[in-house]
């Protein structure tokens, strides 16, 4: 049933130009950065750098592309997540899902899975693009996989938060703005506490936890952070929708 809801969401993203345009623009952006990364690599590495300081092409190009991806998703996810529930609220289509034999949890998970599946297309695309480096060099697959996993968790966290804000309002634009502000705040939280990295507030920053994945490291602490983040916001969304049913 979760999959059926997810299928519906995916279908609805591709039924409008929005989904295709976002896919095309993002792929264009990633492609450009990839190309620049490869060009720069030859310029930087051919010259003045001492052999001991040189590092691999995977990391050099991957860093550029994944850095951009994590930043761009900050804008792309709120745009996609905004309509998930608030649009249904506005056009009063929620009773369609509520009167079908599916639980609220399945509805929320289905919507979440649908959005994450859509965004995973981009993650797979980026990974495939970087794998092509392997044609002429010997790349570090582990680094790319760690980064892909990190990006996936980051994007899933964004989606969970976006879904929650979407459930709060019946105005998709308000949902987008709110989730963008919230995500942006969570992203740069660690900058505010740069002087004191052990501060609890800094620990909440999404970017900080993405850093280890960006370095190619899969740390269970960060993994747990993302999973808890996702569960928290999905639970809040379910509770919000349940409140609709209880309070009307």
């Amino acid at each position, binding site marked *: *049933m979760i999959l059926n809801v997810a299928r519906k969401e995916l279908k609805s993203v591709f039924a409008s130009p929005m989904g295709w345009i976002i896919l095309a623009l993002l792929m264009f952006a990633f492609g450009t950065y990839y190309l620049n990364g490869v060009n720069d690599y030859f310029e930087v590495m051919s010259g003045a750098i001492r052999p001991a300081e040189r590092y691999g092409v995977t990391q050099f190009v991957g860093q550029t592309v994944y850095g951009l991806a994590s930043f761009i998703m900050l804008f792309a996810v709120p745009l996609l997540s905004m309509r998930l529930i608030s649009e249904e609220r506005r056009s009063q289509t929620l009773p*369609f899902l509520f*009167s079908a*034999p*599916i639980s609220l949890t399945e509805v929320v998970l289905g919507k979440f899975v649908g959005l994450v599946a859509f965004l995973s297309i981009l993650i797979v695309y980026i990974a495939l693009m970087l794998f092509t480096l392997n044609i002429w060099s010997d790349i570090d697959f582990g680094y790319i996989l760690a980064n892909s996993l990190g990006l996936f968790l980051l994007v899933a966290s964004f989606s969970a938060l976006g879904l929650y804000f979407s459930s709060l309002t019946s105005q998709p634009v308000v949902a987008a703005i709110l989730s963008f502000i919230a995500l942006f705040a969570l992203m740069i939280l660690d900058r505010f506490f740069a002087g004191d990295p052990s501060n609890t507030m800094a620990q909440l920053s999404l970017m900080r936890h993405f850093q280890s994945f960006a370095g190619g490291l899969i740390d269970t602490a960060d993994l747990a952070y993302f999973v808890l983040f996702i569960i928290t916001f999905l639970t809040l969304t379910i509770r919000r929708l349940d409140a609709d049913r209880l309070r009307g």
Partner: protein
Amino acid sequence: MMTNLTVEALELTRIYGGREAVSNVSFNLTQGQVLGFLGPNGAGKSTTMKMLTGNLAPSAGSVKICGIDMIENPKEAKALIGYLPEMRPLYKEFTVDEYLTIAARLHRVSSRNIKKAVDNAKERCGLTHMSKRLIENLSNGYQQRVGIAQAIIHNPMVVILDEPTVGLDPIQIRDIRTLIREIGTDHSVILSTHILPEVEMVCDHVQIIDKGKLVFNGGIDVLKRQRIGNKLLIGFKNAPQVSDLLQIAGVSEAEALENNMMRVRFAEDSMPHEAIVQAAVKNGWGLYQIAPDQTSLEDVFVQLTYQDAAVAEASAA
């Protein structure tokens, strides 16, 4: 005949901010019945329907669909219901086929029966030639049909339609009514409306709800009897005295109206029509019109919404 209870509502109450939108509504529905839900705006019709379909949790009371409790086993109970809310829940970016396929899938129609279910629903609602059209581009009436198709796609035991004929043209309304009757033969249908003749045409059971309370619950024939009454409207060129009319056997009451018209009430089993005509001819009253005086349904409705509880109880029995 064994009666299969499809819907049991027990003392449904819903409180919005301290005000009771629906209070203590109880009723049963058996298989093969079409129940009409009547009431003025804001009487609690839609709220009751939302509670029946599990879209809204009742503040008190319970709903059972074919014996399955809506609050305890919402998934099983919901699987037996097809619901068309007042605002059609249509995803306008999909085509009719796509939308109905999604509806079938979400209502647990097994994947090999989906195509058949979609075709069947389209055929019943007259949508076959609209399969590939975007719902957005359909006219209001066709969108309404898609809404109904969505509600019957999984062949539910209970179909709940909130104002199904709003915005349709007369021919479509007739089609939809036929469809509702057809569904009503082997399933149960609950429909709300404020078009009174519609209730008379399609329903065999009527409930009138006013200010959240059930004020009438009974068969359609009771309502019809209320409507026809034992009254005649007679036009005379030379109107006689009221006392003259009262002398005719069977006439129990007479009153003079404007334009030389008179309203005559007669006893339950008497037929004074002929006697009145003969008297009119004999006395040269100049009879030019005689017709049964039908209370308009609106009057019946108003009457019922203000009627005391005794009548409602008597008719429910």
